[in-house]
């Protein structure tokens, strides 16, 4: 077999595995959300389909596919159909640069456990996260519905406000590592040197901003049910609604993976090299470590949603511009000063 074909097959298989695992994780984070929220509110949640309701996501998808797709007459039909596609494609492709393991040796080939080792990985993810706002804004505008328009407006203003704090809080890590490559950032977090310990202030602002970027409670004003019915997806039904739902949870999973990569040491298992395991098992444990950390962050996202009430809009904007942005700037200056003085 020619070399180009082999590498195409390897790349495709890697991508296929990652996307299937990602979509399954997304589907089951919906299930986890419903079950956990039920436990938090002293209910049972979905527990009928399969053992402990484990097949619930499957049934939900089938139900949504079998619904009639309704596009209102007054909507801009092309953009109305395009918007959920943008949301999902953008949310999924963010995962292309996240390293989920170091290297694995299979069939005498060294395979890097990362789809694309882009040398500006951090910028790539930040850029795609801000592209996500297009899906929401376009869906709000094209529906020709007042609730949708207001939801889209709120979402765009909120996401651009918190993007600033997010970008600046990442800068502290880039200063310390001197690179935008995600795999180098992870490799530098060996042992106890996780960035959450080295950059606690940056971690805090980044965490809060990522809650706002994913439109999760306490920042879920774009879809505040009591005021806006369904927010930007009021006029969506059937598969298009499912795609928006999927995009929302894909964003949660991706944000968790991004936080894990930047602050929680990515696939690093502290002091794993001291155990003297064979290389293959080390790789497997590292991938599992990465999955476990992402899982923990997803659970944290869900937990926060069912614990904290929603902000008012002026509070949200005040927090973004007058608290998060200054804190992130202070963190940046402190990090830079520390690096210069200890050099």
């Amino acid at each position, binding site marked *: 077999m020619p070399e180009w074909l082999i590498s195409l097959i390897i790349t495709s298989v890697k991508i296929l595995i990652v996307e299937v695992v990602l979509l399954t994780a997304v589907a089951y984070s919906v299930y986890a959300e419903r079950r956990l929220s039920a436990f938090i509110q002293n209910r049972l949640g979905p527990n009928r389909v399969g053992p402990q309701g484990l097949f619930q996501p499957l049934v939900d998808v089938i139900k949504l596919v079998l619904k*009639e797709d309704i596009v*209102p007459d007054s909507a801009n039909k092309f953009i109305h159909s395009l918007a959920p596609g943008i949301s999902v*494609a953008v949310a999924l492709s963010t995962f292309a640069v996240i390293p989920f393991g170091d290297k694995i040796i299979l069939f005498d080939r060294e395979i890097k456990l990362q789809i*694309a080792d882009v040398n500006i990985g951090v910028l790539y993810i930040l850029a795609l996260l801000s592209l996500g706002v297009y899906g929401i804004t376009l869906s709000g505008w094209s529906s020709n519905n007042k609730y949708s328009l207001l939801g889209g407006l709120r979402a765009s203003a909120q996401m651009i*406000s918190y993007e600033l704090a997010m970008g600046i809080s990442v800068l502290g890590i880039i200063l310390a590592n*001197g690179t935008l490559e995600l795999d180098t950032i992870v490799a530098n977090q060996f042992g106890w040197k996780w960035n959450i310990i080295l950059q606690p202030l940056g971690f805090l602002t980044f965490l809060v901003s990522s809650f706002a970027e994913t439109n999760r409670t306490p920042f879920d004003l774009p879809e505040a049910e009591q005021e806006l019915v369904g927010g930007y997806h009021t006029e969506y039904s059937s598969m298009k609604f499912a795609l928006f739902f999927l995009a929302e949870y894909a964003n949660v999973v991706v944000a968790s993976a991004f936080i894990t990569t930047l602050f929680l040491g990515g696939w690093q298992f502290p002091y794993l090299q001291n155990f003297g395991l064979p290389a293959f098992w080390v790789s497997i444990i590292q991938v599992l470590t990465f999955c476990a950390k992402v899982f923990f962050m997803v659970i944290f996202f869900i937990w926060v949603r069912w614990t904290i009430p929603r902000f008012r809009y002026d509070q949200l904007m005040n927090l973004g511009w007058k608290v998060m942005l200054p804190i992130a700037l202070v963190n940046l200056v402190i990090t830079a000063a520390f690096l210069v003085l200890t050099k």
Partner: protein
Amino acid sequence: MYSDYGQVLIFLIFALGFVAIALVSAWIVSPKRPTKGKYTTYECGEDTVGETWVKFNIRFYITALIFIIFDVEIVFLFPWAVVFKEIGMLAFIEMAAFLLVLIVGLVYVWAKGDLQWDKPQPEIPKLDREIFKAGN
């Protein structure tokens, strides 16, 4: 073999393929029973009142403008952060001056009240007489 962006492109093609399969399969499977009422704009069951694309609050526009200014400045910070360790003190001083300008801008916008969003001031209904008097 493939460049990194080539792999990103393949990833994007897979993602778009997933979206296309989902939409097309739903389009094939889903029932189509159009009635007139179904395709009207939803507004809590009432007929819609007035235009949808109304003038929105000017603050959204101002926020977007301020965002663009600050975002461009952050774009300048990224290359600085990458080479910071190599250049050292000089980079720190230069960027401190740059950040000072950024912070002055933030303070200006703040003082002008462009970051101020209206706080809702609900009128809480008050009774002018006491219904129950405790004690007597």
